[in-house]
């Protein structure tokens, strides 16, 4: 079988220039496909649309209460809260509020019975994540509210604020 070999420039500089032009074409096609696919994306807008705190707070369902770092600390000291860390497990292992449970929004079902039991004991359920624009805590709180957990709060920008105030934290040692 004969191979079809096009005449390819041997000079690397010329090859690089051709490569840049072809790369631009590939990037343009990827951009078009990306915009097209997002237009038909069935799951709604993606998170992290902005770093504006006011806009992020508006996205939280008004039926869900937000709490400040001072309130979160007060509830922690009086042992009146169950903290739910909405981040991924690896981030959770790197550090979290002592006693917090790791509950990413998509994995609520596994922890629902424990959360319900804690709510019945009178504990406030406080969801937090990492960053002003992080939507995971609000998403978790909304999911819990829809499942009948009324006493749920969102601790906006919880993890950074907790650390900045020098409050205790817990890390998990790798097995």
């Amino acid at each position, binding site marked *: 079988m004969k191979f*079809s070999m096009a005449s390819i420039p041997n000079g690397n500089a010329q090859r690089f220039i051709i490569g840049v032009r072809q790369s631009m074409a*590939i990037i343009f096609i990827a951009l078009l496909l990306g915009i097209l696919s997002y237009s038909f994306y069935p799951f709604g807008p993606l998170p992290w649309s902005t770093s504006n705190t006011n806009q992020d707070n508006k996205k939280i369902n008004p039926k869900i209460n937000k709490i400040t770092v001072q309130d979160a600390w007060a509830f922690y000291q009086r042992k009146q809260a169950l903290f739910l860390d909405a981040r991924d497990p690896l981030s959770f292992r790197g550090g979290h509020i002592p006693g917090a449970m790791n509950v990413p929004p998509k994995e609520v079902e596994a922890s629902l019975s424990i959360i319900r039991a804690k709510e019945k004991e009178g504990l406030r359920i406080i969801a937090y994540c990492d960053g002003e624009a992080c939507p995971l805590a609000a998403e978790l709180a909304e999911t819990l509210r829809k499942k009948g957990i009324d006493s749920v709060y969102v601790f906006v920008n919880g993890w950074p604020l907790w650390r900045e105030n020098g409050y205790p934290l817990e890390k998990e040692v790798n097995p």
Partner: protein
Amino acid sequence: MSEESSFPSQQKLAFIFRIILGFTFLYAGVIKILDPPGFAVILNNHKLLPSWAINPIAILLPWLETVAGACLLLGYWTIGGTLLVCVLLFVFTVAMSVNLIRGLDISCGCFNLSSRTDAITWLHILRDLGFLCMGIYAFLFDRGFCPFKKPCMKRFDVH
């Protein structure tokens, strides 16, 4: 033996590297296209991008990987495809190295968007450096062999 009928071992190796990279990037791109929010979470965990950039990159980067991978496999724009793949691999390597030095316990998100995968290690970086070497070799020595003869005639339309 004429140049047209010979396939030097250098070019054979470059072709093999190109195909490996093509499958790798096609696979990596497709799994991210299927779960944009999951990829956005991974990007946020890397703590290297401003918040406003996370969504656009979560949408664009997977398609970039997919289209580049497809080009490498089909033999279209292979010079541009390998160049793009090399740039992406360089960026990924630098990003993972920075986070490893910072001590962030995060997952790579390269081929698996699950939050329960292992954290980044120096092995991930060595792997990407290996891919980068393959990409550079393919960029320099691949001659764009393509089994589809007719489309290959047009594969250097962009000059």
